[in-house]
Protein backbone atom coordinates (compact mmCIF):
# COMPACT_ATOMS: atom_id res chain seq x y z
CA UNK A 1 0.00 0.00 0.00
CA UNK A 2 1.26 3.44 -0.94
CA UNK A 3 1.88 5.88 1.91
CA UNK A 4 -0.39 8.88 1.25
CA UNK A 5 0.69 12.52 1.10
CA UNK A 6 4.43 12.00 0.97
CA UNK A 7 4.68 14.41 -1.96
CA UNK A 8 1.36 16.08 -2.60
CA UNK A 9 -0.20 18.30 0.05
CA UNK A 10 -3.00 16.91 2.14
CA UNK A 11 -6.04 19.05 1.25
CA UNK A 12 -7.15 19.82 4.81
CA UNK A 13 -3.73 20.82 6.14
CA UNK A 14 -2.24 22.15 2.93
CA UNK A 15 1.01 20.32 3.73
CA UNK A 16 2.49 16.92 3.05
CA UNK A 17 2.29 14.72 6.14
CA UNK A 18 5.99 14.68 7.03
CA UNK A 19 5.98 18.46 7.28
CA UNK A 20 3.08 18.46 9.74
CA UNK A 21 4.95 15.75 11.66
CA UNK A 22 8.21 17.69 11.87
CA UNK A 23 6.45 20.86 13.04
CA UNK A 24 4.65 18.91 15.77
CA UNK A 25 7.98 17.37 16.75
CA UNK A 26 9.64 20.80 16.81
CA UNK A 27 6.80 22.06 19.03
CA UNK A 28 7.64 19.32 21.53
CA UNK A 29 11.31 20.24 21.25
CA UNK A 30 10.49 23.87 22.07
CA UNK A 31 8.85 22.64 25.28
CA UNK A 32 11.86 20.46 26.11
CA UNK A 33 14.37 23.29 25.75
CA UNK A 34 11.84 25.74 27.22
CA UNK A 35 11.77 23.69 30.42
CA UNK A 36 15.54 23.81 30.70
CA UNK A 37 15.66 27.52 29.91
CA UNK A 38 13.05 28.19 32.59
CA UNK A 39 15.18 26.18 35.05
CA UNK A 40 18.09 28.42 34.08
CA UNK A 41 16.01 31.56 34.70
CA UNK A 42 14.83 30.22 38.08
CA UNK A 43 18.34 29.42 39.29
CA UNK A 44 19.92 32.53 37.78
CA UNK A 45 17.45 34.95 39.32
CA UNK A 46 17.51 33.08 42.63
CA UNK A 47 21.31 33.18 42.93
CA UNK A 48 22.85 35.46 45.55
CA UNK A 49 24.39 38.61 44.03
CA UNK A 50 27.96 37.98 42.91
CA UNK A 51 27.72 34.20 43.08
CA UNK A 52 26.58 33.46 39.52
CA UNK A 53 29.53 32.68 37.23
CA UNK A 54 30.40 35.31 34.69
CA UNK A 55 32.96 34.98 31.92
CA UNK A 56 33.57 31.27 32.46
CA UNK A 57 33.15 30.45 28.79
CA UNK A 58 35.53 30.97 25.92
CA UNK A 59 33.69 33.63 23.90
CA UNK A 60 35.97 33.22 20.88
CA UNK A 61 35.14 29.52 20.59
CA UNK A 62 31.46 30.24 21.23
CA UNK A 63 31.43 32.88 18.49
CA UNK A 64 33.18 30.55 16.04
CA UNK A 65 30.57 27.89 16.81
CA UNK A 66 27.77 30.40 16.25
CA UNK A 67 29.19 31.27 12.84
CA UNK A 68 29.76 27.60 12.00
CA UNK A 69 26.16 26.76 12.83
CA UNK A 70 24.82 29.77 10.90
CA UNK A 71 26.85 28.67 7.85
CA UNK A 72 25.53 25.12 8.20
CA UNK A 73 21.96 26.46 8.25
CA UNK A 74 22.70 28.24 4.96
CA UNK A 75 24.23 25.14 3.34
CA UNK A 76 21.25 23.05 4.47
CA UNK A 77 18.86 25.50 2.83
CA UNK A 78 20.98 25.58 -0.33
CA UNK A 79 20.96 21.77 -0.45
CA UNK A 80 17.17 21.89 -0.50
CA UNK A 81 17.21 24.62 -3.17
CA UNK A 82 19.58 22.47 -5.24
CA UNK A 83 17.09 19.60 -5.04
CA UNK A 84 14.28 21.94 -6.06
CA UNK A 85 16.18 23.03 -9.18
CA UNK A 86 17.08 19.35 -9.81
CA UNK A 87 20.82 19.83 -9.46
CA UNK A 88 21.93 16.77 -7.55
CA UNK A 89 25.62 17.65 -7.75
CA UNK A 90 25.06 20.88 -5.88
CA UNK A 91 22.90 19.05 -3.34
CA UNK A 92 25.76 16.65 -2.60
CA UNK A 93 28.19 19.54 -2.27
CA UNK A 94 26.03 21.58 0.11
CA UNK A 95 25.08 18.63 2.28
CA UNK A 96 28.74 17.58 2.51
CA UNK A 97 29.49 21.15 3.68
CA UNK A 98 26.74 20.84 6.30
CA UNK A 99 28.22 17.60 7.59
CA UNK A 100 31.70 19.10 7.78
CA UNK A 101 30.39 22.16 9.61
CA UNK A 102 28.47 19.94 12.05
CA UNK A 103 31.66 17.98 12.71
CA UNK A 104 33.54 21.25 13.26
CA UNK A 105 30.90 22.37 15.75
CA UNK A 106 31.16 19.12 17.71
CA UNK A 107 34.98 19.25 17.71
CA UNK A 108 34.93 22.79 19.10
CA UNK A 109 32.43 21.73 21.75
CA UNK A 110 34.73 18.85 22.67
CA UNK A 111 37.62 21.30 23.07
CA UNK A 112 35.47 23.50 25.31
CA UNK A 113 34.40 20.55 27.47
CA UNK A 114 38.02 19.40 27.74
CA UNK A 115 39.12 22.88 28.85
CA UNK A 116 36.47 22.92 31.58
CA UNK A 117 37.17 19.41 32.79
CA UNK A 118 40.89 20.21 33.06
CA UNK A 119 40.21 23.39 35.05
CA UNK A 120 40.36 22.92 38.84
CA UNK A 121 39.37 24.80 41.95
CA UNK A 122 41.53 23.69 44.87
CA UNK A 123 40.68 24.58 48.46
CA UNK A 124 43.43 24.20 51.03
CA UNK A 125 43.05 23.28 54.70
CA UNK A 126 43.84 26.89 55.68
CA UNK A 127 41.00 28.21 53.52
CA UNK A 128 43.07 29.50 50.58
CA UNK A 129 41.61 28.80 47.16
CA UNK A 130 43.63 28.20 43.99
CA UNK A 131 42.12 28.13 40.54
CA UNK A 132 43.66 27.05 37.24
CA UNK A 133 44.33 24.44 34.59
CA UNK A 134 45.78 21.16 35.80
CA UNK A 135 49.36 20.67 34.65
CA UNK A 136 50.30 17.61 36.64
CA UNK A 137 48.14 15.32 38.77
CA UNK A 138 50.27 12.20 39.07
CA UNK A 139 48.95 10.00 41.94
CA UNK A 140 52.49 8.79 42.67
CA UNK A 141 53.61 12.36 43.40
CA UNK A 142 52.88 14.10 46.71
CA UNK A 143 51.84 17.32 44.97
CA UNK A 144 49.76 18.65 42.12
CA UNK A 145 50.75 21.43 39.73
CA UNK A 146 48.28 23.89 38.25
CA UNK A 147 48.69 26.89 35.97
CA UNK A 148 46.54 29.57 37.53
CA UNK A 149 46.38 31.90 40.48
CA UNK A 150 45.53 32.19 44.13
CA UNK A 151 42.01 33.41 44.53
CA UNK A 152 41.29 36.77 46.10
CA UNK A 153 38.59 37.05 48.73
CA UNK A 154 36.27 39.97 48.10
CA UNK A 155 35.01 42.45 50.70
CA UNK A 156 31.77 40.50 51.11
CA UNK A 157 33.77 37.38 52.00
CA UNK A 158 33.03 35.62 48.70
CA UNK A 159 35.83 34.33 46.47
CA UNK A 160 36.27 36.33 43.26
CA UNK A 161 36.09 33.22 41.11
CA UNK A 162 32.66 34.03 39.81
CA UNK A 163 33.64 36.90 37.55
CA UNK A 164 36.53 35.44 35.58
CA UNK A 165 36.15 38.00 32.77
CA UNK A 166 37.04 40.78 35.22
CA UNK A 167 40.08 38.76 36.36
CA UNK A 168 41.52 38.09 32.92
CA UNK A 169 44.39 40.57 33.36
CA UNK A 170 45.65 38.98 36.57
CA UNK A 171 48.86 37.09 35.65
CA UNK A 172 48.83 33.32 36.01
CA UNK A 173 51.76 31.19 37.02
CA UNK A 174 52.62 27.57 37.65
CA UNK A 175 51.76 26.68 41.26
CA UNK A 176 52.81 23.53 43.10
CA UNK A 177 50.42 22.48 45.85
CA UNK A 178 51.27 19.66 48.31
CA UNK A 179 48.50 17.06 48.47
CA UNK A 180 48.63 17.06 52.28
CA UNK A 181 47.33 20.66 52.31
CA UNK A 182 44.39 20.06 49.95
CA UNK A 183 41.00 19.79 51.61
CA UNK A 184 38.96 19.82 48.40
CA UNK A 185 39.83 19.54 44.71
CA UNK A 186 37.09 19.91 42.15
CA UNK A 187 37.20 20.32 38.39
CA UNK A 188 34.71 22.39 36.39
CA UNK A 189 32.40 19.46 35.64
CA UNK A 190 28.61 19.51 35.88
CA UNK A 191 28.88 18.70 39.60
CA UNK A 192 30.77 21.93 40.34
CA UNK A 193 27.79 24.29 40.61
CA UNK A 194 24.30 25.02 39.23
CA UNK A 195 25.63 27.08 36.35
CA UNK A 196 27.89 24.32 35.06
CA UNK A 197 25.17 21.70 35.59
CA UNK A 198 22.88 23.73 33.35
CA UNK A 199 25.69 24.48 30.92
CA UNK A 200 26.48 20.81 30.39
CA UNK A 201 22.81 19.80 30.27
CA UNK A 202 21.82 22.45 27.75
CA UNK A 203 24.87 22.24 25.51
CA UNK A 204 25.04 18.43 25.83
CA UNK A 205 21.42 18.07 24.77
CA UNK A 206 22.04 20.52 21.95
CA UNK A 207 25.14 18.60 20.84
CA UNK A 208 23.09 15.39 20.81
CA UNK A 209 20.65 17.13 18.49
CA UNK A 210 23.54 18.14 16.24
CA UNK A 211 24.69 14.52 16.22
CA UNK A 212 21.17 13.22 15.48
CA UNK A 213 20.68 15.78 12.70
CA UNK A 214 24.08 14.88 11.23
CA UNK A 215 23.11 11.20 11.11
CA UNK A 216 19.93 12.04 9.19
CA UNK A 217 21.74 14.41 6.83
CA UNK A 218 24.51 11.82 6.41
CA UNK A 219 21.89 9.20 5.54
CA UNK A 220 20.31 11.45 2.91
CA UNK A 221 23.75 12.24 1.53
CA UNK A 222 24.78 8.56 1.51
CA UNK A 223 22.49 5.52 1.31
CA UNK A 224 19.27 7.58 1.31
CA UNK A 225 20.16 9.25 -1.99
CA UNK A 226 18.83 6.22 -3.91
CA UNK A 227 15.37 7.73 -3.53
CA UNK A 228 16.46 10.65 -5.72
CA UNK A 229 16.37 8.42 -8.82
CA UNK A 230 13.02 6.86 -7.96
CA UNK A 231 11.11 9.87 -6.63
CA UNK A 232 13.04 13.16 -6.60
CA UNK A 233 10.12 15.19 -5.23
CA UNK A 234 9.78 12.91 -2.20
CA UNK A 235 13.52 13.02 -1.66
CA UNK A 236 13.38 16.83 -1.80
CA UNK A 237 10.68 16.81 0.86
CA UNK A 238 12.89 14.64 3.09
CA UNK A 239 15.69 17.15 2.65
CA UNK A 240 13.29 19.96 3.58
CA UNK A 241 12.13 18.17 6.73
CA UNK A 242 15.68 17.43 7.87
CA UNK A 243 16.53 21.06 7.07
CA UNK A 244 13.71 22.33 9.29
CA UNK A 245 15.11 20.27 12.15
CA UNK A 246 18.57 21.67 11.47
CA UNK A 247 17.31 25.25 11.49
CA UNK A 248 15.62 24.59 14.82
CA UNK A 249 18.93 23.37 16.23
CA UNK A 250 20.49 26.60 14.96
CA UNK A 251 17.70 28.61 16.62
CA UNK A 252 18.34 26.93 19.97
CA UNK A 253 22.02 27.86 19.72
CA UNK A 254 21.09 31.47 18.91
CA UNK A 255 19.67 31.65 22.45
CA UNK A 256 22.18 29.35 24.15
CA UNK A 257 25.14 31.45 23.07
CA UNK A 258 24.09 34.73 24.71
CA UNK A 259 22.55 33.06 27.76
CA UNK A 260 25.55 30.89 28.62
CA UNK A 261 28.47 32.84 27.16
CA UNK A 262 27.56 36.52 27.36
CA UNK A 263 25.34 37.11 30.38
Amino acid at each position, binding site marked *: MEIPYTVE*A*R*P*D*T*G*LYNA*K*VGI*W*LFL*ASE*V*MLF*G*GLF*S*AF*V*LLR*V*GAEPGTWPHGWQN*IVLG*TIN*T*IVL*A*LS*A*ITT*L*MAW*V*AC*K*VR*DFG*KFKFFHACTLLLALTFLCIKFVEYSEHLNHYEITLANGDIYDGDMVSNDPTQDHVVIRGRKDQILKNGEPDLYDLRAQKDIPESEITIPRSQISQMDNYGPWHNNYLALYYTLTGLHAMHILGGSIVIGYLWGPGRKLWKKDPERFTNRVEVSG*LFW*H*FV*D*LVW*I*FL*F*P*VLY*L*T
Partner: protein
Amino acid sequence: MSEPHTAPVASAPQSHDHPVEFNSYVRRCAIVLGVVFVAVGLMIWTSYIPEARLDWSPKIAIILLIASCNAFIVAGFLMHLISERKMVYTILGFTVTFVIGLFALTLYAMSDFPLHTITR
Protein backbone atom coordinates in the same frame (compact mmCIF):
# COMPACT_ATOMS: atom_id res chain seq x y z
CA MET B 1 -14.66 10.93 9.50
CA SER B 2 -14.73 13.20 6.50
CA GLU B 3 -12.91 12.25 3.35
CA PRO B 4 -9.66 14.24 3.30
CA HIS B 5 -9.62 14.51 -0.48
CA THR B 6 -12.76 16.62 -0.45
CA ALA B 7 -11.73 18.91 2.41
CA PRO B 8 -10.88 22.54 1.56
CA VAL B 9 -7.29 23.65 1.20
CA ALA B 10 -6.11 25.39 4.36
CA SER B 11 -4.59 28.55 2.92
CA ALA B 12 -2.88 30.16 -0.03
CA PRO B 13 0.06 28.38 -1.66
CA GLN B 14 3.46 28.71 0.00
CA SER B 15 6.12 30.83 -1.60
CA HIS B 16 8.36 27.81 -2.07
CA ASP B 17 5.61 26.00 -3.98
CA HIS B 18 6.49 28.41 -6.75
CA PRO B 19 9.51 27.66 -8.95
CA VAL B 20 12.69 28.10 -6.91
CA GLU B 21 15.45 30.31 -8.31
CA PHE B 22 18.91 29.31 -7.20
CA ASN B 23 20.48 32.76 -7.49
CA SER B 24 17.70 34.51 -5.58
CA TYR B 25 18.28 32.06 -2.72
CA VAL B 26 22.00 32.75 -2.79
CA ARG B 27 21.23 36.46 -2.34
CA ARG B 28 18.73 35.74 0.42
CA CYS B 29 21.23 33.53 2.26
CA ALA B 30 23.97 36.17 1.96
CA ILE B 31 21.67 38.77 3.52
CA VAL B 32 20.61 36.42 6.36
CA LEU B 33 24.22 35.49 7.04
CA GLY B 34 25.19 39.18 7.14
CA VAL B 35 22.37 39.91 9.60
CA VAL B 36 23.43 36.98 11.81
CA PHE B 37 27.06 38.21 11.86
CA VAL B 38 25.97 41.75 12.77
CA ALA B 39 23.62 40.44 15.48
CA VAL B 40 26.34 38.26 17.02
CA GLY B 41 28.77 41.19 16.96
CA LEU B 42 26.21 43.47 18.61
CA MET B 43 25.47 40.92 21.34
CA ILE B 44 29.16 40.50 22.16
CA TRP B 45 29.74 44.28 22.13
CA THR B 46 26.75 44.82 24.45
CA SER B 47 28.03 42.18 26.86
CA TYR B 48 31.31 44.10 27.22
CA ILE B 49 29.68 47.42 28.18
CA PRO B 50 30.85 48.13 31.76
CA GLU B 51 28.33 47.71 34.58
CA ALA B 52 28.80 51.38 35.47
CA ARG B 53 27.33 52.41 32.11
CA LEU B 54 24.70 49.72 31.69
CA ASP B 55 23.20 47.71 34.53
CA TRP B 56 22.94 43.92 34.45
CA SER B 57 19.17 43.65 33.84
CA PRO B 58 18.87 46.01 30.83
CA LYS B 59 22.06 44.51 29.42
CA ILE B 60 20.57 41.01 29.44
CA ALA B 61 17.29 42.37 28.07
CA ILE B 62 19.11 44.05 25.15
CA ILE B 63 21.17 40.94 24.41
CA LEU B 64 18.09 38.70 24.44
CA LEU B 65 16.22 41.20 22.25
CA ILE B 66 19.01 41.06 19.66
CA ALA B 67 18.99 37.23 19.90
CA SER B 68 15.22 37.23 19.35
CA CYS B 69 15.56 39.42 16.24
CA ASN B 70 18.28 37.08 15.02
CA ALA B 71 16.03 34.07 15.64
CA PHE B 72 13.14 35.79 13.85
CA ILE B 73 15.29 36.35 10.76
CA VAL B 74 16.50 32.72 10.74
CA ALA B 75 13.02 31.27 11.34
CA GLY B 76 11.35 33.68 8.93
CA PHE B 77 13.65 33.32 5.97
CA LEU B 78 15.49 30.02 6.34
CA MET B 79 12.50 28.06 7.70
CA HIS B 80 10.08 30.00 5.43
CA LEU B 81 7.93 30.94 8.41
CA ILE B 82 6.97 34.25 6.83
CA SER B 83 5.04 32.38 4.14
CA GLU B 84 3.83 29.18 5.76
CA ARG B 85 0.47 27.45 5.87
CA LYS B 86 -2.15 28.14 8.50
CA MET B 87 -1.60 24.68 10.02
CA VAL B 88 2.02 25.52 10.91
CA TYR B 89 0.98 28.83 12.49
CA THR B 90 -1.68 26.99 14.49
CA ILE B 91 0.88 24.51 15.84
CA LEU B 92 3.25 27.36 16.68
CA GLY B 93 0.45 29.34 18.30
CA PHE B 94 -0.24 26.48 20.70
CA THR B 95 3.48 26.09 21.34
CA VAL B 96 3.93 29.76 22.19
CA THR B 97 0.93 29.59 24.55
CA PHE B 98 2.40 26.61 26.39
CA VAL B 99 5.87 28.19 26.58
CA ILE B 100 4.38 31.39 28.04
CA GLY B 101 2.53 29.20 30.58
CA LEU B 102 5.77 27.40 31.41
CA PHE B 103 7.67 30.62 32.06
CA ALA B 104 4.72 32.11 33.94
CA LEU B 105 4.78 29.09 36.27
CA THR B 106 8.52 29.59 36.75
CA LEU B 107 8.03 33.25 37.66
CA TYR B 108 5.14 32.34 39.94
CA ALA B 109 7.28 29.71 41.66
CA MET B 110 9.90 32.33 42.54
CA SER B 111 7.58 33.95 45.06
CA ASP B 112 5.77 30.79 46.10
CA PHE B 113 7.10 29.99 49.57
CA PRO B 114 5.47 27.84 52.25
CA LEU B 115 3.78 29.79 55.04
CA HIS B 116 6.08 31.33 57.67
CA THR B 117 9.15 31.03 55.44
CA ILE B 118 11.76 33.65 56.27
CA THR B 119 13.56 35.05 53.21
CA ARG B 120 16.44 37.46 53.09
